[in-house]
């Protein structure tokens, strides 16, 4: 095995071009587990931990350009206003030790359907900035996940950053597991209200081969809220609408039975999380509207 230690980003791209099978390592919270357990013996480890710009972010403009290796702990501390859904999801990652090292770039590179940041990225709206010596491209996060632990990166590409829409409305995240720390999601749900476009976006984790949006549920909810005038009135979401939204979200799942939970349980849990998180974000939205007249 070779340990490649590029001093800057250009060197890293050149190294990846020269050794397309090199495995990038930043926080190491996924890669080192695989090496420790002999599940992986890459010919080259590409250490990205020394590249300063990967640990920085830029929050000017409508997006946050989040460096691929910014640890979860810094997202929680510094970006919870701009990226509330992602900050909530980050807080459920592992433990303080893991949050000090793990990053969204690593979550995307690993592309596990159980990665905690995916539902929040899907709900907020995000693009993955992939770079190689050939150039840069922005991949919508929906198209980034291509299969279980597979993503849309070309062999010579590295994740430079993630562009995440700043929140313009309330966001929430919910995750089912056996305790509050050190838990791989049984399943997870993210939701974001986008009041300016009167749309709702969602993300489901660990309940399909890839993280997915519940597109039909999103469209149903946006139409139902518009029809009932809820965006203007700030009235509560009618219970029948919340129930239908939950059922449609559950329908977007394609889960499996595994050691962490059964497919049936995951479908049920996603429905419950969808209904609850909708309640939470809508209560917050109503609070910012400052009124509570009844929906027609």
């Amino acid at each position, binding site marked *: 095995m070779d340990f490649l230690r590029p001093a800057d980003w250009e060197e890293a791209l050149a190294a990846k071009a020269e050794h397309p099978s090199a495995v990038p390592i930043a926080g*190491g*919270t996924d*890669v080192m*587990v695989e090496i420790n357990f002999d599940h992986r013996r890459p010919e080259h*480890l590409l250490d990205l931990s020394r590249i300063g710009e990967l640990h920085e972010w830029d929050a000017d403009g409508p997006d946050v350009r989040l460096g691929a290796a910014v640890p979860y702990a810094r997202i929680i501390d510094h970006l919870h206003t701009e990226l509330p859904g992602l900050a909530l999801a980050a807080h459920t990652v592992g*433990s303080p030790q893991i949050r*000090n*090292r793990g990053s969204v770039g690593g979550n995307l590179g690993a592309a596990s359907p159980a990665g905690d940041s995916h539902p929040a990225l899907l709900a907020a709206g995000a693009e993955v900035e992939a770079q190689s010596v050939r150039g840069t491209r922005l991949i919508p996060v929906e198209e980034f996940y291509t299969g279980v632990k597979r993503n849309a990166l070309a062999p010579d590409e590295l994740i430079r950053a993630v562009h995440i829409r700043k929140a313009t409305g309330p966001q929430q995240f919910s995750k089912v597991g056996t305790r509050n720390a*050190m838990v791989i999601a049984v399943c997870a749900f993210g939701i974001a209200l986008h009041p300016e476009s009167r749309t709702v976006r969602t993300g489901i984790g660990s309940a399909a081969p890839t993280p997915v949006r519940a597109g039909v549920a999103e469209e149903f909810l946006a139409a139902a809220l518009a029809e009932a005038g809820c965006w203007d009135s700030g009235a509560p979401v009618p219970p029948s609408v919340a129930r239908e939204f939950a059922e449609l979200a559950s329908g977007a799942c394609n889960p499996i039975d595994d050691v962490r939970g059964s497919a049936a349980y995951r479908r049920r849990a996603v429905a419950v999380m969808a209904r609850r998180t909708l309640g939470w974000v809508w209560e917050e939205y109503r609070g910012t509207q400052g009124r509570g007249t009844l929906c027609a």
Partner: protein
Amino acid sequence: MRVTFTVNGRPQEADDVWEGESLLYVLRERLGLPGSKNACEQGECGSCTVRLDGVPVCACLVAAGQAEGREVGTVEGLADHAARRAGGTSADRARQWRPDPADTVELAPVQRAFIDAGAVQCGFCTPGLLVAADELLEHNPDPSDADIREALSGNLCRCTGYEKILDAVRLAAARAAEGD
């Protein structure tokens, strides 16, 4: 490969390090610092918790080469680290560190509190908990119970001695407050 870094204030060099090796392995097997414990090797148990440039991390998940040029703090250097933080003068204590069967070694306040509160049972999780608890108190001298639980949530104690461990952190915080 060779890895050169600082451990508990002292320059260290490890040779013939395998590229896939963890920082934990280097500390324990090459540098003779077995305080950090090796258990899960997947970041779940926290018994290998060390400070990397001051930040608590699982040493089993840091590739040895990533420690190049960096500062690592282990439980072996905790007493010295605490003394320096408190403005003590014995900056070289870690260099002279030796196991002391007579138990006369000066301990960090958090170590003393763990003993006094009965927070050490089999002792395997203790080094990781000490490093995590010391870092908590460094940044938050008066932590709430929720703060303590959160800060120690990455450290498992299979003796399930958590209540005493929480007592120990509260005790260390209370003593520090009295001493101020």
